């Protein structure tokens, strides 16, 4: 075949490829998203999920044939010590995926491959708005009756009077520091922001961390008048972003829900001496041999935190196992175990009597509502400031764009 003929064939071929690729792209692009505007209005959401049993006995029966439940969780929420008991009782194997952050969880649930999720308050409303989760029929989760009233009917888990999940528990984001590098009585976020531990910071890698900067500014710059760290107008937002940009060069390592183990390593080696953490990592650090010499505290300026809710996917492939899991994880015994393991306040009142450490509920302030007043649960920033400023607050999109810029 002569070179000329080949050349013509090649160009014709290339043209054909491009045309087919464009056709495939435009035609297949039709079904990836429905009209996103209307899903927010779908208030008459039904608790019915295809395949779900109508009563507890039916659910238990159907669960045996389902055989497994596929969950997106925060690290440590489904440890073998209670997941195995669940499998023995119900026949449902527990398969989990750690979520790196709330954004990650929203994304994973959007894929439709998971049955349930332990969503924090900044993920729940987004999941509800996207139509990825179904409201929960509390008749089918009898343990819900014993959940603290303070966790029921909150703005982040109840929409139009319908509950969208069972409360798991709540906790604060704590300040953690090496006892040999910082004074024992450290009770302020200052070391994380003022440069005294430059090059040794361990910080949570997610745009929601901007709220932590806002919490610090609330206490140290009262003229900014920050009330809600998730509703920041331009001036407050710029101040928070500036503070974070100043902090950026001081950070040794970031961590998130899938790389929490590296935080244990860096505190152990001394690469990081102060930072933000979940009680889970402090438990892991204490369990190291020898234990990592750290202390953790809720600083006096207040802190961000999270209140988690177990939700079920609208298109769950194993709805019966998921309902059984939701009921199980808030049962007194299991709730006590996970609260102690992770280091958080349980959601079930009866769990307090069952923790190994009888002081657990007191240590974690499970019933002390006053203690939670300056714990600002993760929430999704929206334009509506919720007060007389109107719609001028920065949205989560602004937060995400700023976070990329801050990381540089």
């Amino acid at each position, binding site marked *: 075949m002569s070179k000329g003929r080949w050349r013509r064939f090649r160009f014709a071929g290339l043209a054909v490829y491009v045309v087919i690729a464009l056709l495939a792209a435009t035609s297949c692009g039709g079904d990836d998203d429905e009209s996103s505007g209307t899903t927010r209005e779908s208030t008459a959401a039904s608790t019915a999920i295809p395949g779900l049993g109508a009563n507890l006995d039916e659910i238990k029966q159907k669960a045996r044939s389902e055989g497994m439940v596929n969950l997106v969780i925060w690290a440590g929420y489904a440890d073998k010590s209670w997941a195995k008991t669940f499998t023995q009782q119900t026949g449902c194997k527990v398969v989990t995926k750690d979520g790196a952050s709330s954004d990650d969880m929203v994304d994973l649930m959007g894929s439709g491959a998971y049955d349930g999720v332990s969503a924090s308050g900044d993920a729940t409303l*987004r999941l509800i708005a996207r139509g990825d989760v179904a409201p929960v029929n509390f008749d089918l989760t009898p343990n819900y009756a014993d959940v603290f009233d303070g966790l029921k009917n909150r703005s982040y888990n109840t929409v139009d009077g319908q509950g969208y999940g069972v409360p798991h528990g709540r906790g604060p984001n704590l300040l953690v520091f090496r006892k040999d590098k910082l004074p024992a009585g450290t009770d302020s976020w200052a070391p994380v922001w003022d440069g005294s531990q430059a090059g040794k910071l361990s910080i949570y890698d997610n745009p929601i961390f901007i709220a932590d900067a806002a919490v610090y500014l609330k206490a140290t710059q009262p003229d900014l008048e920050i009330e809600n760290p998730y509703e920041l107008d331009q001036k407050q937002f710029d101040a928070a972003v500036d503070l974070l940009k100043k902090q950026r060069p001081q950070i040794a390592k970031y961590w998130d829900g899938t790389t929490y183990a590296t935080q244990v390593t860096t505190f152990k080696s001394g690469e990081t001496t102060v930072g933000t953490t979940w009680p889970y990592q402090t438990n892991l650090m204490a369990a190291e041999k020898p234990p990592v010499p750290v202390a953790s505290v809720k600083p006096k300026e207040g802190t961000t935190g999270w209140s988690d809710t177990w939700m079920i996917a609208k298109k769950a492939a194993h709805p019966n196992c998921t309902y059984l899991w939701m009921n199980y994880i808030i049962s007194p015994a299991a709730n006590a175990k996970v609260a102690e393991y992770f280091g958080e306040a349980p959601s079930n009142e009866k769990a307090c009597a069952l923790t190994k450490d009888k002081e657990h509920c007191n240590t974690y302030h499970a019933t002390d509502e006053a203690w939670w007043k300056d714990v600002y649960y993760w929430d999704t920033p929206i334009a509506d400031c919720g007060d007389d400023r109107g719609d001028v607050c920065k949205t989560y999109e602004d937060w995400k764009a700023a976070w990329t810029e801050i990381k540089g």
Partner: protein
Amino acid sequence: MRRLSSFLHRHPYGRLVGLLAAPVGWLVVIYLGSLALLLMAAFWDTETFTNDVVRNWNLDNFRQILEQDVYRDVALRTIAMAALVTLADAILAFPIAYYMARVARPRTREILVVAILTPLWASYLVKAFAWNAMLLDDGFISWFLGPLGLGPPGDKVGLWLTFTYFWLPFMILPIYTGLERIPSSLLEASGDLGARSLRTFWKVTLPLAFPAVVAGSIFTFSLTLGDFILPTLIANQQFMGTVIYNDRSANLPVAAAFAMVPIVVMTVYLVLARRLGAFRAL
């Protein structure tokens, strides 16, 4: 059946099309089609609250990556790292490949090929965490450099070392193949004409092997350009891969727009590589 076979006999294009239809169809529809779908999101928007992708055709995402400095900084940082890694790998790989191709006995050569390929069988993450441990302030690398008076490697140097290690086999093998192809008669002729070994190397071997080096560099450059795990783990800095990865759920359209940058860079690189003869050497 006979008519089909006689048709195909008379039309060589028909044979070609029939043979290639399945793999080309797979390539175009599944690979290129899905790539096009993904990149098309670059022209769309996200709904602010839910993150759903909304098909409002616009160019805002491109404006954002052109206006916000961070994207330019990240792109330049990644390209610079890719170039440095390619350079280091070329310098390291050439002597090894030369030894394997022209000096080693056949038995040694076989063992060396196996030795070079073995790390590729180890899990990426295992190697990544191993290097992460070695690069710690009190890790193996700083212990090694201690007597030389050098401190622990910084983040960027550590990342460069790790990338160089990871992609070295991809540079060694093309160079080895390229050097093997050089007929010994050429080198003997050069000697006969009076050139000593260094001159022969410089004037004959190196120019003949250069396309192979460029071919190997395609791998090291493109793999460094797109990697998102190592920069996060080791350097704690944003590279193109990490920005795209982080944005994929938070803001898919911006991630898609930014993903065009490495595609454009690699297209330019491949055109240059082709000019330098790399495709003939692969």
